[in-house]
């Protein structure tokens, strides 16, 4: 906007202007002006000393004319400088020129005249003095001038310092960190910055170590300066502490230092563990933040599974492997098909529920909450409490690992919500696009080019939207649109329901088929092969249906790409969840009742194979589903990305490569993870399979991405999408799995012939029995029994807890709502302040105009007329 501010003062009366400016200031502010003026000078000197070099002759004149303000003239904001320069170039009547300029702009841009900007265009008439006042406003020096930064941080150290109120400096005056409020009112020239720095030192010294570290890190000063600050703090701090601080404090200090050192080394160790750092960097360099979010999500899932696996191996599989069940039958030989079916050879291993025993072994620690230790028979401690009780271990391990997963999930959701959801206002899209859309991570040439193109098209779209300015659709158009949407939803929902029904009927049919096969005494391997049909069908549905949804979405033609993405996610999620729901119903309902008859057959024939144990069977089913999902993902990657790329490039002669569909791929991951969580109860080592799957998928997807895909062309709000994905991971996926597992534990009767809970009515009963035993053994634990009796078993307590939770959530939403209101109020206030500022400045200008002698004004006009001629 610098061209808009063309002063109309000419070369000669510039001097007068400044003179006048000085007078106005004096008359306005009276006695205190001088000091304030000096302060401002110092301020400006600091702020602009680097980039300001004024060597215009009239400035020198002005300096001589203004006796009172030796600094006024050679230290001014460079917009003022610019002004003078321009003025010396264009000595003609710039008023007319300005008008022409305005008109020209108005013509080529009709929006301009309507904009509020237009009404303020009279600021071009501001005198240099007013402009100087404007440029010296505190809010404008923060962030760029060193003195302001130092004083800002001085201010924040002050806030951090609880111990002492800084009496010698006066109270904190301004809510906005600004330099003027913290200026020490001395007459020493040019000492401002030094002064501030010294105070900052003092304040930093008084902070705690962690506060000081944070402060130093977040200070936008150069590293050299920070190091000096740190050095000064430390060198002043150490002798002080050695001399005066008593021994124990010194010890504490050394402890802190030692702790900090070890913490740093731990941190660097953890950072060196950063998985796939280089790979992720490459991906983000070529495809940007959006595609990166998929891989980061994959990594998060991997960590969840590693946690689950570690817990399960440590507390379940390892102890059980150390104490294999005594009545072990001979294992079926390994045939190779087991890798697909998960049955046969694997059936009687720690992999599945059925292998675990309900025995209690001598250990060296209690099993409660997984605080066990290495198992061994050599423990001589015969204290009955020191036993490793497998049913209890099973119960607690699963329960605790689910609980911890839940807490981590909720925590990460809340964190990512806090980061990505802020108060949106409809304006500011263009500004945000301009400053926040460039992805600094992208380093590949073609992707950079693509990003440029994307930003360009988005800008154009936004501009065209502005031009369109809410064009109203006719009723007929809207009706047609509604019909299309309705049709699309009916189609997608209908197909989803059809798929769910199909899967249900197919699964019951397959189960009947299995029963007949068992009764016909078919070989085990045939039966198991036939079991692969159901996962194949479900995975095919999962593979094909998104294509149908995409076709439907293409028919709908959404305006906003984000709406389209959300609708696609919604439909795919509905499909996956309904299929999974049907499968859960099938497993926990039909399979169990079927297994009663099945296990009779098995008992009669004497052939095992996991069929007598429905938990093992369900675990195997989940294994098969997980594996099929994996195989189909690989196939999809090869066919959908590689072959399609070849086809489109060689046959269709298209230049563009396929685009990586982030939403669909992430939903596939969520689906796989749901399967893994569902299966943990029935197959404690299922997370291992999921880990292997995720690692392979990572490499395959990365290779395919590098080979076949190009950076996405749609705008993608990466952080909001990440929030949505992690929410989806928590809400339908984890919660669904947790509900299914809890239902199983609480109500379903476990198999009688196998597993850790074989004699019990429900898995939950193991806890009850343990509590009762505890009470019998030791009366000290009666409080525990009491808690169990009244809190866990009593539904009233559960209701009360749920109620309290709901109330807390309700209060929180209310608080958030209130904060939102306050934020909008503050926004309004900021706008008002802006208005006030404008008003004050125009008033200042008015006063200035009035104070100015008429003769000067007259002369000025005359001069302008002359020059125009």
């Amino acid at each position, binding site marked *: 906007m610098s061209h808009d501010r063309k002063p109309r003062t000419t070369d000669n009366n510039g001097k007068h202007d400044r003179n006048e400016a000085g007078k106005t200031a004096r008359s306005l502010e009276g006695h205190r002006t001088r000091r304030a003026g000096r302060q401002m000078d110092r301020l400006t000197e600091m702020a602009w000393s680097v980039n300001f070099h004024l060597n215009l002759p009239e400035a020198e004149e002005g300096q001589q004319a203004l006796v009172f303000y030796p600094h006024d003239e050679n230290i001014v904001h460079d917009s003022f400088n610019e002004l003078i320069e321009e003025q010396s170039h264009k000595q003609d009547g710039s008023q007319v020129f300005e008008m022409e300029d305005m008109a020209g702009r108005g013509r080529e841009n009709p929006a301009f005249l309507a904009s509020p900007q237009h009404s303020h265009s009279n600021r071009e008439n501001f005198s240099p003095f007013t402009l100087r006042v404007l440029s010296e406003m505190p*809010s404008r020096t923060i962030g760029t001038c060193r003195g302001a930064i130092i004083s800002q941080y001085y201010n924040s150290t002050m806030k951090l310092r609880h111990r002492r109120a800084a009496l010698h400096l006066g109270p904190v005056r301004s809510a906005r960190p600004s330099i003027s409020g913290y200026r020490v009112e001395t007459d020493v020239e040019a000492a401002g910055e030094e002064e501030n720095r010294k105070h900052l030192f003092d304040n930093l010294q008084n902070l705690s170590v962690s506060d000081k570290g944070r402060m130093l890190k977040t200070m936008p000063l150069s*590293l050299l300066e920070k190091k000096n600050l740190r050095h000064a703090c430390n060198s002043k701090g150490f002798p002080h502490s050695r001399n005066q601080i008593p021994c124990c404090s010194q010890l504490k200090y050394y402890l802190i230092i030692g702790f900090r050192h070890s913490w*740093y080394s731990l941190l660097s160790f953890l950072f060196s563990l950063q998985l796939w750092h280089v790979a992720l960097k490459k991906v983000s360099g070529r495809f940007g933040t959006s595609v990166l979010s998929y891989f980061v999500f994959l990594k998060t899932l991997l960590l969840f599974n590693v946690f689950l696996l570690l817990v399960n191996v440590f507390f379940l599989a390892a102890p059980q492997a150390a104490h294999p069940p005594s009545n072990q039958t001979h294992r079926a030989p390994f045939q190779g098909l087991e890798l697909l079916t998960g049955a046969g050879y694997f059936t009687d291993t720690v992999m599945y529920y059925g292998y675990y025993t309900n025995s209690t072994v001598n250990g060296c620690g209690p099993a409660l909450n997984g605080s066990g230790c290495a198992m061994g028979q050599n423990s001589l401690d015969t204290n009955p409490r020191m036993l490793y009780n497998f049913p209890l271990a099973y119960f607690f391990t699963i329960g605790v690992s689910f609980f911890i997963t839940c807490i981590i999930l909720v925590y990460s959701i809340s964190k990512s919500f806090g980061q990505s959801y802020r108060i949106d206002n409809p304006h500011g899209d263009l500004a945000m696009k301009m400053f926040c*859309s460039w992805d600094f991570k992208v380093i590949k040439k073609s992707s*950079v080019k693509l990003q440029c193109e994307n930003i360009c098209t988005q800008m154009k779209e936004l501009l065209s939207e502005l031009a369109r300015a809410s064009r109203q659709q006719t009723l007929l158009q809207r009706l047609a649109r509604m019909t299309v949407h309705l049709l699309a939803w009916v189609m997608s929902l209908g197909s989803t329901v059809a798929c769910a029904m199909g899967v249900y009927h197919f699964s019951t049919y397959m189960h009947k088929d299995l029963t007949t096969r068992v009764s016909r005494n078919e070989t085990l391997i045939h039966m198991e092969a036939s079991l692969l049909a159901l996962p194949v069908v479900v995975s095919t549905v999962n593979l094909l249906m998104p294509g149908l949804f995409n076709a439907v979405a293409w028919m709908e033609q959404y305006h906003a790409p984000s709406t389209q993405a959300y609708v696609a996610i919604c439909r795919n999620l509905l499909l996956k969840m309904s299929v999974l729901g049907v499968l859960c119903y099938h497993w926990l309902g039909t399979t169990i009742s079927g297994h009663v008859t099945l296990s009779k057959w098995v008992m009669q024939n004497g052939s095992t194979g996991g069929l007598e144990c429905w938990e093992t069977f369900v675990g195997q089913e989940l294994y098969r589903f997980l594996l099929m999902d994996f195989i189909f993902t690989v196939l999809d990657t090869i066919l959908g990305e590689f072959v399609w790329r070849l086809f489109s490039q060689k046959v269709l002669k298209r230049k563009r490569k396929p685009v990586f569909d982030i939403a669909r791929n992430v939903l596939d991951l969520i689906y796989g993870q749901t399967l893994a969580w569902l299966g943990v109860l029935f197959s404690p080592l299922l997370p291992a399979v999921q880990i292997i799957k995720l690692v392979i998928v990572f490499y395959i997807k990365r290779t395919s991405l590098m080979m076949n895909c190009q950076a996405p062309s749609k705008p993608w709000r990466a*952080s909001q999408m990440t929030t949505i994905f992690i929410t989806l991971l928590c809400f339908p996926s984890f919660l669904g799995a947790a509900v299914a597992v809890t239902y199983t534990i609480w109500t379903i009767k476990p198999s009688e012939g196998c597993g850790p809970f074989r004699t019990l009515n429900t898995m939950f009963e193991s806890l009850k029995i343990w509590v009762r035993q505890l009470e019998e053994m030791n009366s000290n634990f009666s409080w525990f029994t009491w808690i169990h009796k009244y809190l866990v078993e009593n539904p009233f307590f559960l209701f009360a807890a749920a109620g309290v939770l709901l109330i807390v959530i309700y209060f929180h939403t209310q608080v958030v709502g209130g904060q939102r209101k306050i934020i909008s109020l503050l926004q309004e206030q900021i706008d008002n302040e802006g208005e006030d500022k*404008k008003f004050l400045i125009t008033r200042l200008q008015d006063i200035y105009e009035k104070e100015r002698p008429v003769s000067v004004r007259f002369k000025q006009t005359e001069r302008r007329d002359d020059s125009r001629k």
Partner: protein
Amino acid sequence: MGNKQTIFTDEQLDAYQDCTFFTRKEILRLHTRYHELAPNLVPMDYTNDPDCKVPIQLIINMPELMENPFKERIVESFSEAGDGNLSFNDFVDMFSVLSEMAPRELKAIYAFKIYDFNTDNFICKSDLEQTLNKLTREELTPEEVNLVCEKVIEEADLDGDGKLAFADFENMISRAPDFLSTFHIRI
């Protein structure tokens, strides 16, 4: 440990650790990168803080910066003298601000510096034009550029002076959740 001693003293590493968002290992890695930029200029031994600067041409040819349209501005904003030649301190500072851990306020300050092409401490219309031309590789027509700049100022300018001060800029950045993740260079 023996390798570390030859480059930095423990005290130096501690200072770097305290003043940046990097760990010891990363500081050493950064030093290797810095050394690779100009093996003749940069000594391996940094124990007595040698005063050397790598010229801007070498720094903007780092793969992390090479394709970035704002590379000159980034480097200039972090150089002490403003000419783009970086000492090791400036170099570490640059990647510290651009790292994942740096808070929004810090990033906003440097982003403001980067977008302020004429270093007048305001983002004025000419800065906006330059930014836009770099973002779009000058594929918008002058009228479009003009219109976009006007609209941006209209949207973000709170005090109506026709240019964006830091306060305006920060206010706008605070509403963009993606800023934190995109203003980030992995080293």
